[in-house]
């Protein structure tokens, strides 16, 4: 069957590909401006302390230093991305009175080069009064624990609750109930480009910023709040961005400090965080204590689930509030629980703030939920695939009071994975295949940011040569959204991909868009772009119809630059000729189309959900506990595949990151100090550890998405840790309840198991 699409579904080069393979792609890290200075940030060495005095006089005297700023040079405002809730805007960035974690900024320096700026930091004298600190949320939540923020009872930053059905009654009807506890670890984003910004205040009081960000619009708005400026006096540009993964859509210390310094000097100031700062003083994945109760009948029907979660919030709210909600929502995924209750508590601690990271609370809930589900299946003597089939979500399912799921290919995914496992046949000794199912959203509907704008908007201009310029606030951070959006525009307009240029992530010229997070851009920005293209197309069609003089009952369409009668494709005119004529006919005005998308009446969470099932195969060395990830096979569905090369990349990349979460990545701390703040010490999956990755693509069509497409970015980060845990159990019969599943933990569990066997 030939595809009905011309551009969508084709294997194409990313539109910025040649720049990236030749080293000519310019990142914020590469930006150099005339008269530019370099900045550095001084950070707290204490997890919790009062700032008594900051003496910057010696630093200011150092030759080459142009300015030193502290919290006193700011307006003293607190910011947070949950702008609707003032009490959750709790981060000053440059602390005035108190520091709350090791890494909290206290001062910043601008100098003629990085070395002098670094030297100046040593000359700043800060007098601290250390305060008692608290690191573990289970300690911080106690009545007599030190207070991280004044007036916050039990250090509980936020609590979130979700409930439907009658959970207590339902548990009474269950034949079997399990209660299990888990602990999910932290994880660092490790973007290859560290957080950086070049901020430039002009003498006219206007601010221009180049920065590595997932949302230029958010950064612009947060700057406006913190600097008391009108947002249109601030231009934020994301050029090429060296990864984000959830770490780059809140105002950060590089952005804020460079702006404060530049404001004083009216010179551009560049701040690039060091790799150590990136590990210790940005944000990270939220660690969670998970308490789960699951009840089922003998035949494996899940009747009720209850989840209690206490998360380690760190020093500030950040996006942790959203992670707390989403982990609760996704704890019910992807199954039809008739009765469900979730209670989540985010607790302030004196540690690096935890926030958004790819998967956004769902990798945690999927690890714990899929582990427990396998245990439940074993208790009941049911096959793991079978219990998932029995309870899995189906199309047009309503999560009571929460969400409405239209397309859903979970059952086809289960069938494909079942087939894959059967094909593998009998495994070698100490090998095991574990499965995990997951679902994820295509962008959130929530508006805690309090934007008055449409969630996504796009403008398209058709030039005299027929080329289309797409303007979108969406941010390409490497995931390839510019390519995906260009493909959508090209398909809708019926032109070639080379005929589309994309201008993105520049608040000076692009309409606002919430940016690259929550797997929202393909669906939301994609819909906005598609609508803008449709508006251009309808204008072009007016001219074409006039030119062709066809009977009005005929439908016209454009394909491969040929405007034609749908039923008689040979009868047509060139798109390029029509555009030329049309622009002349419009008195020389270029053809412009606008489009926007804000989800309405789509439930509370997201307009669409994608699903998948993953099977991980491990080979365990029972002597040492070491294990190898042999193969990870994923059956997944993301609606119509717009950019197949992009999806493969998302999938394999997710396995590197999510496999790392299950396998090796962790941020151990000692009294709030992260012990492995370097790439040498923070173990992540390198090429030799990377398993084979096979993809089983399942066809679905999402009515709400552009051309039927939905999320393919974050959902894939959810299943791997759970699949690895289940595989280890299948291989050697030990269950690990806390992440990451290190060889040491497997070794200990194996010895424990042997001891038990002997004592019997």
């Amino acid at each position, binding site marked *: 069957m030939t595809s009905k699409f011309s551009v969508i579904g084709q294997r194409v080069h*990313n539109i910025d590909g040649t720049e990236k*393979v*030749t080293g000519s792609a310019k990142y914020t890290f590469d930006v150099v401006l005339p008269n530019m200075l370099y900045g550095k940030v001084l950070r707290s060495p204490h997890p919790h302390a009062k700032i008594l005095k900051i003496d910057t006089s010696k630093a200011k005297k150092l030759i080459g230093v142009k300015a030193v700023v502290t919290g006193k040079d700011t307006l003293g405002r607190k910011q947070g991305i949950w702008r609707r809730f003032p009490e959750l805007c709790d981060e000053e960035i440059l602390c005035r009175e108190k520091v709350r974690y090791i890494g909290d900024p206290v001062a910043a320096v601008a100098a003629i080069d990085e070395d002098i700026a670094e030297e100046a930091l040593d000359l700043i004298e800060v007098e601290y009064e250390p305060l008692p600190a608290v690191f573990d949320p289970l300690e911080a939540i106690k009545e007599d624990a030190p207070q991280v923020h004044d007036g916050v009872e039990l250090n509980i930053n936020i609590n979130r609750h979700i409930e439907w059905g009658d959970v207590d009654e339902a548990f009474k009807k269950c034949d079997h109930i399990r209660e299990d506890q888990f602990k999910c670890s932290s994880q660092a984003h490790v973007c290859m480009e560290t957080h950086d910004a070049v901020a430039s205040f002009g003498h006219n009081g206007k601010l221009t910023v180049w920065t590595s960000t997932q949302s230029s619009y958010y950064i612009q708005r947060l700057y406006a709040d913190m600097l008391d400026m009108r947002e249109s006096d601030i231009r934020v540009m994301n050029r090429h961005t060296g*990864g984000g*993964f959830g770490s780059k859509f809140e105002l950060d210390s590089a952005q804020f400090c460079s702006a404060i310094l530049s404001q004083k000097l009216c010179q551009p100031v560049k701040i690039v965080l060091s*790799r150590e700062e990136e590990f210790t003083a940005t944000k990270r994945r939220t660690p969670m204590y998970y308490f789960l109760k699951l009840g089922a009948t003998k035949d494996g029907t899940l009747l009720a689930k209850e989840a209690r979660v206490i998360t380690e919030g760190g020093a500030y709210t950040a996006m942790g509030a959203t992670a707390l909600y989403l982990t609760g929502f996704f704890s019910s995924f992807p199954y039809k629980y008739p009765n469900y209750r979730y209670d989540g508590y985010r607790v302030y601690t004196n540690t690096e703030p935890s926030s958004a990271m790819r998967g956004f609370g769902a990798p945690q809930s999927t690890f714990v939920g899929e582990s427990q589900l396998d245990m439940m299946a074993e208790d009941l003597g049911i096959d793991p695939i079978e219990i998932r089939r029995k309870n899995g979500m189906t199309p047009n399912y309503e999560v009571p009071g929460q969400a409405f799921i239209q397309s859903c290919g979970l059952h086809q995914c289960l069938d494909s994975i079942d087939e894959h496992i059967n094909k593998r046949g009998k495994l070698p000794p100490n090998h095991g295949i574990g499965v995990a199912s997951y679902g994820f959203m295509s962008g959130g509907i929530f508006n805690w940011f309090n934007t008055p704008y449409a969630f996504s908007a796009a403008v398209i201009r058709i030039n005299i040569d027929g080329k289309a310029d797409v303007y979108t606030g969406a941010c390409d951070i490497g995931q390839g959204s510019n390519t995906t959006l260009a493909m959508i525009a090209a398909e809708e307009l019926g032109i070639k991909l080379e005929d589309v240029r994309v201008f993105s992530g520049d608040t000076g010229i692009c309409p606002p868009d919430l940016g690259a997070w929550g797997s929202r851009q393909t669906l939301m920005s994609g819909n906005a772009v598609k609508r803008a293209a449709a508006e251009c197309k309808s204008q072009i069609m007016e001219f074409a119809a006039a030119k062709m003089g066809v009977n009005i009952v005929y439908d016209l369409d454009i394909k491969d630059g040929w405007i034609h009668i749908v039923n008689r494709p040979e009868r047509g005119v060139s798109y390029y000729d029509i555009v030329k004529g049309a622009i002349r006919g419009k008195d020389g005005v270029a053809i412009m189309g606008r489009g926007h998308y804000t989800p309405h009446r789509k439930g509370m969470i997201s307009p669409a959900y994608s699903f998948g099932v993953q099977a991980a195969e491990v080979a365990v060395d029972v002597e040492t506990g070491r294990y190898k990830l042999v193969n990870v096979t994923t059956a997944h569905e993301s609606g119509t595949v717009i950019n197949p090369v992009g999806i493969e990349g998302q999938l394999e*990349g997710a396995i*590197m990151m999510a496999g790392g979460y299950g396998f090796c990545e962790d941020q151990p701390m000692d009294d709030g100090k992260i012990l492995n703040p370097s790439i040498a010490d923070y173990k992540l999956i390198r090429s030799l550890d990377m398993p084979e990755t096979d993809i089983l693509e399942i066809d679905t069509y999402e009515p709400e998405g552009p051309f039927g497409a939905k999320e393919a970015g974050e959902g894939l980060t959810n299943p791997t840790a759970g699949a690895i845990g289940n595989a280890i159990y299948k291989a050697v019969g030990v269950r690990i309840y806390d992440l990451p599943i290190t060889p040491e933990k497997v070794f200990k569990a194996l010895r424990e198991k042997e001891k038990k066997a002997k004592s019997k």
Partner: protein
Amino acid sequence: MKKELKIKVNGQPYDLFVKPKTLLSEVLRNDLGLTGTKRGCNSSSCGACTVMLNGMSVKSCSILALQANGSEVVTVEGLAKGNKLSPLQNAFLDHGSYQCGFCTPGMLMSSTALLTENPKPTKEEMKEGIDGNICRCTGYNSIIRAITAVVKGEYKEAK
């Protein structure tokens, strides 16, 4: 006290004066404006700054510029011949072996050095060849597929 550094980069000889503590990566980026070479960690663990030094892959943040005195360096900017991309660059494009692109110059240099040294590597040798380079986006397998395609002769050197 600056010292003299004679170095050939992408075929072009340079005569520079640099501080003794300056890293090779800093000279490439700051003095020569070759910003394709990235800095991911500055402690020789991520591989984003990989270049070829006398035909071998080297992390340019791991050596002082003066240690490269008299050497020949190739950076990512030196891979294409005029407007013709190298076979590996073309293969990276076709296989989507890059996403954010920040590690890509280093990946290309490690892969190029690998094939210079060993034109017919096994899959395991390919993995070893890029094991010093972190990529947080792609999961490496698409990079291995690109190298494999070049080894199979699917991409011809531009003349």
